[in-house]
């Protein structure tokens, strides 16, 4: 019987998974990004917060139900979306922290920001956890959404 063995999780192998994640993100391979995540991987983008009259939509949930549509929408609105990984540190427990600039030029509406062809580049801090099976089981990211809005020419605090 053929057996497929997964290499042991180390700081290096966990970092390798996350490096591949950003490579696929840069290639707009959302399916590939998702494939690197566990089926029930947690997702949290605290800056994503859309206030309606009766409820607030937040960027919290699962990679497959919240993360994937967000990444897909972001790439649709910013067709040249890219990222630059500045630092990436990890430990043997599977924690990976990455300082990443995300940038793109707006072609479609993004949230309440109307497209004006403006470009943004904003520093992000991503915190991943990679499980023993070398699948990402948690993604959290922080950035300043005000910086993005202002770069895109949107001056209202929504």
């Amino acid at each position, binding site marked *: 019987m053929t057996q497929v063995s997964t290499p042991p999780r180390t700081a290096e192998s966990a970092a390798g998974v996350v490096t591949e994640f950003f490579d696929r993100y840069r290639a707009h391979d959302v399916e590939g990004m998702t494939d690197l995540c566990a089926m029930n991987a947690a997702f949290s983008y*605290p800056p994503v917060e859309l206030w309606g009259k009766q409820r607030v939509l937040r960027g919290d949930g699962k990679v497959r139900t919240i993360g994937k549509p967000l990444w897909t929408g972001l790439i649709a609105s910013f067709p040249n979306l890219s990222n630059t990984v500045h630092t990436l540190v*990890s430990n043997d427990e599977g924690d990976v922290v990455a300082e990443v600039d995300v940038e793109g030029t707006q072609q479609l509406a993004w949230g309440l920001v109307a497209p004006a062809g403006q470009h943004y580049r904003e520093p992000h801090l991503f*915190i991943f956890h990679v499980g023993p099976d070398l699948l990402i089981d948690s993604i959290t990211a922080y*950035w300043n959404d*005000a*910086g993005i809005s*202002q770069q895109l020419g949107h001056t209202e*605090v929504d």
Partner: protein
Amino acid sequence: MTSSSVGTSTQAQIVQSFLDALARHDVEAAMAAVDPQVTVTVHPLGIRGTGAGVLHEVVTDLVRAFPDLMISVSRVIATGDVVTALFKAEGTQAGSYAGAINQEKHLDIDQAWRFTVTGGLITEVSAYWCQAQLYRRLAVKRYDEIAIA
């Protein structure tokens, strides 16, 4: 990418001591964990500087503007010399902050601070939070008119 667990634990403890002191509003005790030549980046405030004075001003402004500031640390992640802390800052505004006039609004903001610890002191800090959330909480309506309620 990793160092010994003893070293990593110590580095996490140094960051924890900084955060504990900040939670007690004891700025001087917090700064005791910081190298005099610390590199400071506070992305949402557009601050990039060197020296303990820069960080001292950042935390002093926070404690002064939110006298009931509460820091709730959810995770401290040690990855060698780098320690990343995730926490929520809560408080009621009692003074101007980041250009926003005091309207006595309540603030609750999730933040991530990335520290580098070298030689027993914090030598680098990069702080991340969403200034849009902060201004929303403080009832600021426009980025180009922050001080106008």
